[in-house]
């Protein structure tokens, strides 16, 4: 069965080469998808792990980042990869502003359980506002451009260069952020606040400042992922929510607040999904990600790699 599929996809003659190609296709395809998932989920995880703010508008920032890159590339001819230097800082500033205007008011002084559902509702409101503002601005038409859509030949199969590039950048940024969290003083403060909020405050860590920084960083990661996604797929204002759901699945798979688990889970989900699409059909993809989400919520609420 798998061999037949391999033949149909690539039209190769030898059966042995077919299997090898298929496995390689799934692995590389899965890792490139998974790299994207990992970065967008890392941003969501940072916000939730630190502030217990479940930002369901997360994917909308990915959508906005993608549109910003699209506008810069088609309007001014800026190289899509260079637009990351614009979308990232812009989104970071927007994140700081949103934290200041909306979330800081909730984070100060509320009971935790009420904070979680109220911040959830707040971000649902944000989701409606951003998605429909984008619809008013850009309409529901598909938008896209072609960038680096050249084939890379490697080990007897072919990969689109832009996918490999996007995934490499995404994974690189994700790992760099992880290293930053582990080694820098700010990173140490972030981890201290995650583990022991009261103790962290006692030793003089400025909670509000760290919250604002992490909120901005989370949104910047989502927007930067959007810039990468815009190189690969056509855009509509609706692309955000599926990424939010995927990021949620990844975060819950990897364990809330667990950054390395999140990176691993992103790659894992990419692999599983790609294999599923190769073996079954693409209709099953959405069902399976919701089903995986529900199952993990029910069976292992602390995540696959949970403590």
């Amino acid at each position, binding site marked *: 069965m798998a061999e037949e599929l391999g033949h149909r996809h690539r039209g190769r003659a030898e059966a042995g080469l077919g299997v090898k190609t298929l496995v390689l296709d799934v692995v590389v395809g899965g890792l490139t998808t998974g790299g994207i998932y990992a970065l967008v989920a890392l941003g969501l995880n940072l916000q939730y792990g630190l502030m217990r703010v*479940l930002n369901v508008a997360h994917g909308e920032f990915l959508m906005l980042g993608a549109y910003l890159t699209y506008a810069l590339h088609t309007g001014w001819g800026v190289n899509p990869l260079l637009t990351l230097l614009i979308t990232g800082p812009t989104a970071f500033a927007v994140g700081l502003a949103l934290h200041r205007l909306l979330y800081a008011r909730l984070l100060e002084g509320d009971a935790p359980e009420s904070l979680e559902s109220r911040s*959830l509702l707040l971000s649902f409101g944000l989701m409606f506002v951003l*998605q*429909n503002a984008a619809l008013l601005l850009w309409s529901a038409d598909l938008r896209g451009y072609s960038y680096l859509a050249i084939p890379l030949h490697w080990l007897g199969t072919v990969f689109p260069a832009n996918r490999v590039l996007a995934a490499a950048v995404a994974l690189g940024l994700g790992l760099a952020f992880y290293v930053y969290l582990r080694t820098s003083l700010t990173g140490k403060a972030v981890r201290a606040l995650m583990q022991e909020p009261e103790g962290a405050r006692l030793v003089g860590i400025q909670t509000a400042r760290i919250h604002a920084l992490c909120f901005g960083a989370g949104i910047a990661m989502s927007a930067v992922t959007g810039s990468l996604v815009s190189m690969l797929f056509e855009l509509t204002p609706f692309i955000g929510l599926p990424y939010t759901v995927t990021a*949620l699945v990844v975060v819950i798979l990897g364990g809330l607040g667990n950054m390395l688990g999140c990176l691993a889970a992103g790659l894992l989900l990419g692999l599983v999904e790609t294999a599923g699409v190769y073996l079954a059909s693409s209709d099953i993809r959405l069902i399976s990600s919701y089903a995986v989400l529900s199952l993990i919520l029910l069976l292992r609420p602390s995540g696959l790699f949970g403590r």
Partner: protein
Amino acid sequence: MAARLAWTTLGAALVLAPQVLAPYYRSLALAILADVALAVAWAIFSGPTRYLSLATGAFFGAGAYTTAVVLGRLAWPLPVLAAAVVAAVMALVVGTLALRLRGPYFAVFTFGLAELAKHSLIWFETSITGTVGRLLLSPPGAVALYYTVLAVAGLAVVTAMALPRTRWGTALIAIGADEERAETLGVATTRVKIGVFALSAAFMGAIGGAMAPRWTYIDPQVFNPLVSFQTVIMALLGGPVTVAGPVLGAAFLGLLSEILLVKFRYLYMLSLGLVLIVVVLALPRGLAGLVRARRPGCGSPSPTL
């Protein structure tokens, strides 16, 4: 006393309304009544327990789809009853699984439910039965629909008023205040939660079932997450811990959506989001909380969601 008079007058006016209203206003009243029923039904469970349920769209959709399947085989209003039963059974299953989850986990799980139901149904219909939707032939008349929805809404309001006076109502408030303590004190928390969740779902399913004949064609898109959000926003806007709150919120947003939704769809959704943000930040107890705040010392301290 004054409150009872107001409710009675409102009820009588609504019963007489189809006799005097032009068809457009009757259909507007019907839509708002359905919103009221959904918001009140949502608040029956989520108001006192503070479990944020986003499953309304799933139960509404299940009810609507049930009617679409059985209409023509059962005499009106039996399809509505069937819709209520299907939604309640679905809630029993979902509740047994999900009501162990707290906080955002529960909200995310229930949010995914409508999408999961929709996509599973699409998959089931295309690959097993070979259809993607159902035609609703020979629907009941408009006035019959109005009275059906009015009856369901009235029943929901009466239930919401009566429940706090029962032992289960007290148990719900105890669960919302501190679930572990309630359990320690001997409240059968699981049974109460699942039971009331199913009761609230039955009303949502009944409304879905009663509203289905307004569309002549129904497909799995009827499982709409927007219904879940609209319901939460309506209840929160009014204030979820009173009965008048969700009624007020639903009437207000129902009118707003009627004015904006058809002409400016995106603008309506955008303003819905803004309303939600403002409510969460500025009105933690809803519009009804504003009234209450001006009259201190009346009523019990109301929890915020």
